[in-house]
């Protein structure tokens, strides 16, 4: 609506009916935008779901001893590298899923509630295994990468 029409809208009976309608439209605009965003997001997630299913299918069909979801990930990586899928296509859904990844596997860990006593009796051994093996992995990866990496640029004169 043009600014000049505002005064007219209050006086002419025909326009009075128009005013609330535009108000309504203005009020629903953010809602419509949110709905549009949600639909687009759902479509993105559906695309990722389809890739996951494709990965599962490939693994079963080829009788591979390999997780289907990782096959789906490699599939998406290949599609991105070949340019079949543009990077921005899964931009929103991938960052959302990555941010809330913990939420999706917490329900599996909740199964611990029945394993509590077994784990507690062996708790020290398990913790020792986890800490020591993490330390071995951290040092092995860090040390080898540092030794093999070309010296950092700032060390040059």
């Amino acid at each position, binding site marked *: 609506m043009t600014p000049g029409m505002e005064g007219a809208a209050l006086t002419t009976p025909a326009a009075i009916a128009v005013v609330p309608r535009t108000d309504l439209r203005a009020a629903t605009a953010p809602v419509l935008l949110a709905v549009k965003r949600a639909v687009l997001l759902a479509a993105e997630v559906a695309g990722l779901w389809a890739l996951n299913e494709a990965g599962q299918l490939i693994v079963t069909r080829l009788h591979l001893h390999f997780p289907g979801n990782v096959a789906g990930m490699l599939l998406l990586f290949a599609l991105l590298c070949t340019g079949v899928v543009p990077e921005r296509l899964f931009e929103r859904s991938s960052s959302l899923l990555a941010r809330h990844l913990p939420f999706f596997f917490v329900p599996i860990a909740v199964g611990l509630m029945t394993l509590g006593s077994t784990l507690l009796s062996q708790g020290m051994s398990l913790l020792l295994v986890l800490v020591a093996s993490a330390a071995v992995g951290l040092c092995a990866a860090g040390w080898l990468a540092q030794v093999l*990496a070309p010296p950092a640029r700032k060390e040059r004169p």
Partner: protein
Amino acid sequence: MKAALTLYGIAVTAGMYALSRRLSRRWPSPFTSPVFFTTSATILVFLATRVELSDYAQAKEILTFLLGPATVALAMPLYRNRRLLVANLVPAMAGLLAGALGTMIAAVALARALGLSRTIVVSISIKSVTAPVAVEIARMIQADQTLTAAFVIVTGMIGVMLGPWLLDRAGIRSPLARGLALGTVSHGQGTAQAALEGELAGAIASIALGVAAVFTSLVAPLLLPYF
């Protein structure tokens, strides 16, 4: 009744998760991290309100539905940082393979030496892989998914609490090496920690997380007979 319990299970999990996000922002610590806090708080609420694990089965099915798509989405950071990997191919891949294999062999050897059961040995072998992939490998190698998930979570916490200190002690100062080590061993939480140290460390950690997941997926089933 069953539907009500399922809804209750979902509500408790989601509520505790929302709470953990607030807590971790206010008091950042491995113990307020969303995974650890949500898991323990949900278990405590279930125990207090006498919810059986079988009552939660349906809710678990619904909530973990997005785990597959979330794994596929891990291709995005891998793709975004691919040039960094190519530029550092030799040190990154060598460090990654050494770290992923080293931590797996150390875990299996030590667990066996301590006389832990075979289920535990198999389940603990893949504890350095990001959770959604680890539970999928667990299914393949007949490990216990729940145990694996728990070991993965604790490994993430160890990486955050112990990782930076240990790397300092070992004289590993290059951001590339630090990020790589944290991402390879402590997956998501290690990557978050590496990102705090700097952009390069965070980027290489997110690559390490993805590549280590692929590598362990390939290697774990092959090594299974020797575990």
